[in-house]
């Protein structure tokens, strides 16, 4: 893991993508997240919207963009459930903000680092979701931590495959 100096960070350009990639990738993640569990016999051990949020937040190196993207994805996911709208939104807002903040400080070209960031933020997102639901809202909900750990691992594996593919769509100067 290589921490970068401020001058080097300024020199590094922010990654840019075609508008179609910005629009379609999050949308595809949301649709697939809702559709794929039907093929996987109900197992939902992945969170594609979170993976996409982390990717763009890291690549854009912008906490604000990460925050906005995370909030949008989370609210959208909440709207597809029967739960209160905003629980996932808060969790992914924080995850996007942290990913954007970390992106300023680390080498986001390194696959291992990006995978580790995805793993940690996936777990953190689960913790925030559970905390908001149980503590902030005071609602009862059983929780399976093993499933959340499994989800973090699967998210990391997806990130290992998906991030290089998305890198190829990057606009090069």
């Amino acid at each position, binding site marked *: 893991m290589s921490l970068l100096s401020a001058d080097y960070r300024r020199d590094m350009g922010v990654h840019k993508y075609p508008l179609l990639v910005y629009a379609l990738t999050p*949308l595809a993640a*949301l*649709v697939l*997240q*809702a*559709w*794929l*569990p*039907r093929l996987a*016999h*109900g*197992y*939902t*051990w992945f969170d594609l919207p979170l993976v996409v949020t982390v990717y763009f937040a890291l690549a854009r190196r912008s*906490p*604000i963009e990460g*925050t*906005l993207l995370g*909030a949008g994805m989370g*609210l*959208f*996911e909440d*709207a*597809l*459930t*029967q*739960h*209160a*709208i*905003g*629980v*996932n*939104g*808060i969790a992914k*807002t*924080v995850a996007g*903000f942290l990913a*954007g*903040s970390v992106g300023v400080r680390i080498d986001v070209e390194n696959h291992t680092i990006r995978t580790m960031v995805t793993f940690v933020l996936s777990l953190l997102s689960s913790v925030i*979701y559970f905390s*908001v*639901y149980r503590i*902030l*809202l*005071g*609602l*009862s*909900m*059983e*929780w*399976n931590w093993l*499933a959340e750990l499994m*989800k973090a691992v699967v998210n990391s594996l997806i990130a290992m495959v998906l991030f290089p593919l998305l890198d190829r769509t990057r606009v090069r100067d």
Partner: protein
Amino acid sequence: MESFFVRYRNLLVLLAILLAQIIGLAMQVRRGDSGRNSLDPQDAPGVRLLRLWADAVVAPPEKAFHATRLGVVSAWQDYLDLRHVREQNEDLQKTIDRLRLEQASLLEDAKQGERLQALMDFQQKYIYKTQAAQAIGTSGSDSSRVFYIDKGADYKLERDMAVITADGIAGKVREVFPHSAQVLAINDQTSGAGVILETTRVRGILRGNAAGQPQIVGILKDDRIKPGEKVLTAGGDLIFPRGLPVGVVEKVVADPERDSFIDVIVRPAAHLDRLDEVLVITSTEAHFPPEQQQDMATSELLKGAQAAAIAEAALEQKKAAEVMAERLPGLTEPNAPATTPAAGTTPANGQPGTGATPAAAAAAPPVPKLLQPQHPDRFTPGAGAPLGGETRAPAGQEKKPAPKTGLKPQSKPGQKANVPPTHAGGNTQP
């Protein structure tokens, strides 16, 4: 001041968005009378609008994916199915006939049940009308066991309609959109369905746990509840009609929060993890629907035809038995009541002329005479001496009372009873 906003703009944006979401959450949660927080069962207009937008974005691609997958799968399966379709069709037709007969036999019980329920001022609802729909998507979250179907308000679906499959109940409609609907599955933690255990008649509420298994909660400890017992809908929740299959008891575990209570884990009858086609019960009636009544009328007709067929088959079987009796004299029961006294045989009770009337004797076929053995012994028919003038019954049957058949005894007063023989020729007099 300007530098403050510029310097902390990232953090300020984060806080602003978090605050907005927290306020939005606070508006969706209510504190109940019991002091516990709960979500509004009915979404506020703003929340419903967000759900509507999300559904409008996700549902069309999901329908397209689903249709494509179904097209590919069904094209392949159609080819495979066509290979044995004729045999399957015949088997299915037989099954339909059999089921119709069973249904007709159950009709009287059902009608009687209706009358009794009317006496008890309880009306059972029967499924009147259903709407088939395809499951097209999920919520995409483990903590929310909902799925989406491709029919909505355009097919007159409404909130709280029951969703079932051929195997058992699946859930209830929670939200209806113009062209799709959200269904809350029975294994969600926020669902609730009134159920009853078939054998022990214990009632409870079914809801999901964290692992996505349906469980019956709030039941007092009961040793009679065993794995394998069937679980049915109780009908008290006004959503699911009574008597629909829910699943079977998988195991019984202690309630972690309350002593002397148990949770009954249920293995659902419907395959909740791979739902494809479901039925939404759009209407229920207190009486049998016309279609079902028509089916029952057909069943009655079929039943009559089948009864005639069975009688004919029995007649043919009887004729065949008679022919066989003619051709196989050695198998003829030597102690059977004589029907032809003129042929020289002795009636079973040893008194000639009491076995049959002369007219019957004339009509009956001649019974062949038994061949005489070359070396008779004590086992030879007619060689054994009667014990005290009576036939001894086999062990275990000596004190057995005669079965109540409702038929009059054939022996006349002053005549010995015609006791069944112990073995061939056991009571035949020489």
